[in-house]
């Protein structure tokens, strides 16, 4: 059978998938909004516990990684395979940095005894309990998406290297970068909701 190729169709598929991802997080944003409204004082107190500096650092890291992902598309369009490989590689490295930061951030909280089901947490006000529950659940789901994004970008790198992604056929790279922007975008919403509104 001749290979059916339709770049517009592929991108359309990716956009629809991104829609479903936004709705997945949308459910959580809804729950966040409802409980923030119900326990606004507790959310206020609990948010002070989060390290806004680490959050801001991770925001910068993700923004830079989104830029490198976008630049890699231009590089491949111009036929510069080596540069494209470097740029996707930097994106993956940035993702790794994000995870390292997240590890220290979570590690510190767990060290303080703030983790789901901990004795300290169960003694707190109900709103604070929910805030930290949402914090771990939302950032945890986001970390899962970071890891999936890293896997996708690794596959993309392999395909650039084998030249099945090239200056004539790069829709896979575009879709990979689209997914990465989604991961970035969700963080852009998580960061103020959890770290900044105190």
């Amino acid at each position, binding site marked *: 059978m001749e290979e059916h190729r339709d770049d517009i169709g592929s991108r*359309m598929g990716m956009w629809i998938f991104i*829609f*479903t991802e936004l709705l997945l997080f949308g*459910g959580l944003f809804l*729950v966040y909004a*409802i409980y923030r409204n119900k326990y606004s004082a507790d959310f206020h107190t609990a948010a002070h516990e989060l390290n806004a500096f680490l959050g801001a650092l991770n925001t910068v890291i993700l923004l830079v990684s989104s830029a490198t992902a976008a630049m890699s598309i231009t590089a491949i369009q111009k036929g510069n395979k080596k540069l494209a490989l470097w740029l996707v590689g930097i994106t993956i490295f940035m993702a790794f940095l994000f995870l390292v930061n997240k590890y220290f951030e979570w590690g510190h909280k767990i060290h303080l005894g703030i983790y789901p089901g901990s004795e300290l947490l169960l003694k707190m006000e109900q709103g604070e309990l*929910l805030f930290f*529950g949402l914090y771990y659940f939302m950032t945890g789901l986001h970390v899962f998406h970071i890891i999936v994004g890293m896997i996708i970008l690794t596959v993309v790198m392999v395909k650039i290297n084998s030249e099945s992604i090239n200056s004539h056929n790069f829709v896979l790279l575009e879709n990979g970068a689209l997914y990465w922007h989604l991961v970035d975008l969700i963080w852009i919403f998580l960061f103020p909701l959890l770290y900044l509104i105190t």
Partner: protein
Amino acid sequence: METQKSHLNYIEDTQGRKGIFAWILSTDHKRIGILYLISITTFFLVGGLLGGLMRLELAAPGETVMDAQTYNGLFTVHGIIMIFMVVIPGLGAVFGNFFLPIMIGARDVAFPKLNLFSWYLYMTGALLAVYSQFAGTGAPDTGWTFYAPYSTDSSTNVIPAVFAAFVLGFSSILTGLNFIVTIHRMRAPGMTWFRMPLFPWSLYATAWIQVLATPIVGITLMMIVAERWFQIGFFDPALGGDPILYQHLFWIYSHPAVYIMILPAMGVISEIIPTFVKKAVFGYKAIALSSIAIAGVGYFVWGHHMYTSGMSGTARWFFSFLTFIVAVPSAIKVFNWVSTMYKGSIDVRTPFLYAASFIFLFMIGGLTGLVLGSLASDVHVHDTAFVVAHFHYIIFGGMGFSFFAAIHYWWPKMFGKMYNEFKANVAWLIVFIGFNVLYFPQFIIGIQGMPRRYFDYLPQFHTGHLISSIGAAILLTGIVMMIVNLMKSRKNGNPAGINPWGGVTLEWTVPTPPPVENFDEIPTITEHPYTFD
């Protein structure tokens, strides 16, 4: 294209793969459709058997063949299997996969590999659901709705069941995504939106619901898991959570899911009726657009499942009002089907019998739905057997009968053999009678106060339950007859020919069974899809 060419059809052409691998590794949309047909039929029979066991327990008051806990497990797993594994994928995965590309003049769906991957996801979810029934701490006993806080406390296998629903939902999303892109990008030249047949139209509306509603239940089910594993109190009042919030999030998906089931069913009926009355469908645009209207309004009626759960009066009348609104496009379709038949030369064949009984049963199901959609009457019948009867009339009488209609309509095209029509008609009569004997008494005992999900009951409900159980036996007999008759035709049936019913949509122009590529040459469409000479 009118003559049967010598090239191989999709069953003969294994593309160099051997045995079962020709099926489970093929990305041909027709083979994937058959994979779904086999798996869904299997799970339908399993789910039906569980339902039959429940009817056996209910045939007489008191504990007869099982204890209460077993009964709780049965109705939960019956629900999970029938909803998530049979009726939600059902028509789209089987007939959508097989016929959508052919009906719009394409060689395959937009993403054939993703299509096969969806089937693997489906099977993974299905096996998890079966696992939850037999392994670990016992079958889940929460009902298929997994209402919190019981679902976060129950010691049974809730987690595998929840994961099963999640994975099945993911499969459903990917199928929906595939169909949307296929319909947007792969229609044959000249096939404008309003030259597209009505089954693809209904699949298009359905696909958007699958894509937009399913993620919500996905995240909700994950919150249940998080609550069980990590004590994050999303829904447990003791930890600050809100169990009513769970119900909202659950029904935000699960009400639109009803339309995922019924819209393709309506699409099938809109195909069958014109073919057997030899007349263009009446109100083509109204039928096509009412699918979109149902999909749109269907998002905003979920609260009608929760009138008695605790909601403000304003929210309740709002949801009730919208529920009545959503009945309008459904009624538009029924009127159009009936008008199509008016003054047509009706050829009463097996698919038509199923299609006509669909209209009858769907009307009973739909009108009793309005009884439940009105605030005052719902309070009286909420959580009674009346609800059970209502949704079986919609889901089984609607989607189920439509599935039976579709299999009898398209079987000759799919397998190239004609079944014994007399036996098929007898089986239809038995199924139709059995169905009504099984479910109609439940309306009556429901109004009299028989609660749903009870394994025991007061003596005054005995007659109703006994009649209902007898109906279950009749129905089961009819279904077995139907399946045996269809299976026998694979060996003994007469060759079906290209167009046994005189249909005019594109699937009746390709060879029987279709070749792998569907079309030698992609047709150019110049006319309305239902143009009878």
